[in-house]
């Protein structure tokens, strides 16, 4: 069982690499090195802040875009090319296919993030000339970004399991935007009453809370991150991902592929 998931995951990763997904690393490197060199010339006293903010924001945005645009095609492309039938005609369960695809995409994003992290630390070394203790907090921010990717991958797969690629992209991106406003949505819920309050509160808890996973500003200012936050965010991301993947499996199991 696990061997089959690993095979599907590895093939998904290989397919993403063949699709030249990792080419975004070139754009990322140019962006960071350009920022590291030029910002010092056109602004005042924010070279380090820009490298950390821009680096982590770019890692996050590049990853979100990759997660959405690859995730939405993972199932539909296999159906369109009819390769799904070849896979499912073998002793592979549908849920294994979904979970394998998820791990393949997540693995692609982790490798991508790893190379980008090298870029961020390289640029930081260029502007600051040395690393300091609080710079290790960047690892925590990167870890939270990877947790975001897991959630988005699972959501993209969920939408991909029942919708067209275009609509899946719209749904996934909309959820990313709404998830960034999750705290505001909760604030709005407290201002309302009655049924509206119930609906708003329900929506606020149903959408993924990306603002809780965003600690870029705090890390840029070298503020400490509580161990409890790391633990709770990890559990939150894992449960949310499991929820979305379960939804994807439930839908895909019942989907008529004829």
């Amino acid at each position: 069982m696990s061997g089959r998931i690993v095979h599907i995951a590895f093939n998904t990763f290989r397919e993403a690499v063949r699709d030249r997904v990792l080419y975004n690393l070139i754009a990322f490197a140019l962006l960071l090195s350009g920022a590291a060199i030029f910002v010092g010339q056109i602004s005042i006293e924010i070279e380090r802040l820009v490298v950390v903010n821009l680096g982590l924001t770019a890692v996050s945005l590049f990853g979100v875009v990759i997660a959405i645009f690859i995730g939405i095609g993972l199932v539909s492309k296999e159906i369109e090319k009819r390769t799904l039938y070849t896979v499912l005609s073998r002793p592979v369960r549908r849920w294994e296919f979904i979970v394998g695809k998820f791990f393949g995409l997540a693995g692609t994003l982790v490798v991508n993030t790893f190379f980008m992290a090298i870029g961020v630390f390289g640029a930081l070394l260029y502007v600051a000339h040395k690393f300091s203790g609080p710079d290790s907090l960047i690892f925590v921010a990167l870890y939270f970004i990877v947790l975001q990717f897991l959630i988005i991958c699972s959501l993209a797969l969920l939408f991909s399991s029942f919708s067209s690629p275009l609509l899946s992209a719209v749904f996934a991106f909309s959820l990313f935007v709404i998830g960034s406003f999750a705290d505001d949505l909760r604030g709005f819920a407290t201002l309302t009453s009655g049924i509206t309050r119930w609906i708003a509160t329900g929506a606020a808890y149903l959408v993924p809370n990306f603002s809780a996973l965003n600690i870029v500003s705090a890390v840029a200012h070298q503020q400490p991150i509580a161990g409890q936050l790391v633990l709770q965010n990890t559990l939150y991301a894992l449960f949310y991902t499991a929820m979305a993947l379960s939804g994807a499996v439930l839908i895909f199991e019942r989907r008529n592929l004829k």
Partner: protein
Amino acid sequence: MNARLRTTIVAATCLIVSLNASIILLRNIDRIRPGEIAEDELYINSPKMVKRASLGFDGLMACIYWTRAVQYFGHRHYQREYSYNELAPLLEITTALDPQLMPAYHFGASFLAPAPPNGAGQPDRAIRLMEYGIQQNPDNWRLYYDLGFVYYTELRDFKKAGEVFARGSRVPNAHPFLKVLAADMAEHAQDFSTARLLWSAAYESSQDTNIRQNAVEHLRAIQVEEDVTNLQNAVSRFVERNGRIPTSLWEVASAEHLRGVPVDPDGIPYELSIDGQVLVANPDNFPFITKGTPPGYKPGMPTFHTKR
């Protein structure tokens, strides 16, 4: 030459020619409508709106807005403009996006508070910015120092300046000179020695080259203003004693038993106008002086010195 190679060459040539033509045309269009590009316009001026639109990437947006503020101020300052309408909103958006972005407060106050063309001439907005900064970072003593500085240098409100320095001196790890400044504001606020102490503190407490250069210029200006004040008093005494305006500062120096005509911080002797006003030989070398300049003098671009 095969057909494929020919197509490649033609397409590549076409691409290069079109690219160059579009650049040349765009430059021509810019010349036809000058000023359109550097429009003094801020399309979204609500800090809350910008924060929401940043989708959680507010740290990066703050860096972008801070860079915009620096560029906006730098461009207008270089052009010797007198209006800086968008500076305060840019700084308010920057600090709303990232309330811990200290350069936006330190430099923002010194961009906003001084009278044009050295600044925006908006000390009230500078005070609001600094009070917001203190509210967000109550343990940062430098913010109290910068706020007191605005009250002292721009509003000449020594009571308020003293209060702010005293507030700052109570912050944990505050620099000891805040206590000295708070005491000086009460008794010797208008003395040159107090101004010198303030700018010396600014010089000593910062590692930033721009802040230190600015402090050096102000210290040089204080020296000139003190010299001009003393010399002008000497000229008045000469007029009282002799009933006429002295013909030169040599005459004043010998009447006052000085060793020679005093010199400015660049080593150039001060001059005397025919109506008895003490003047600096090269006022452009002292961008922040308010005394010793000829009537109708308009300051040029400041030239910064690195040594005190």
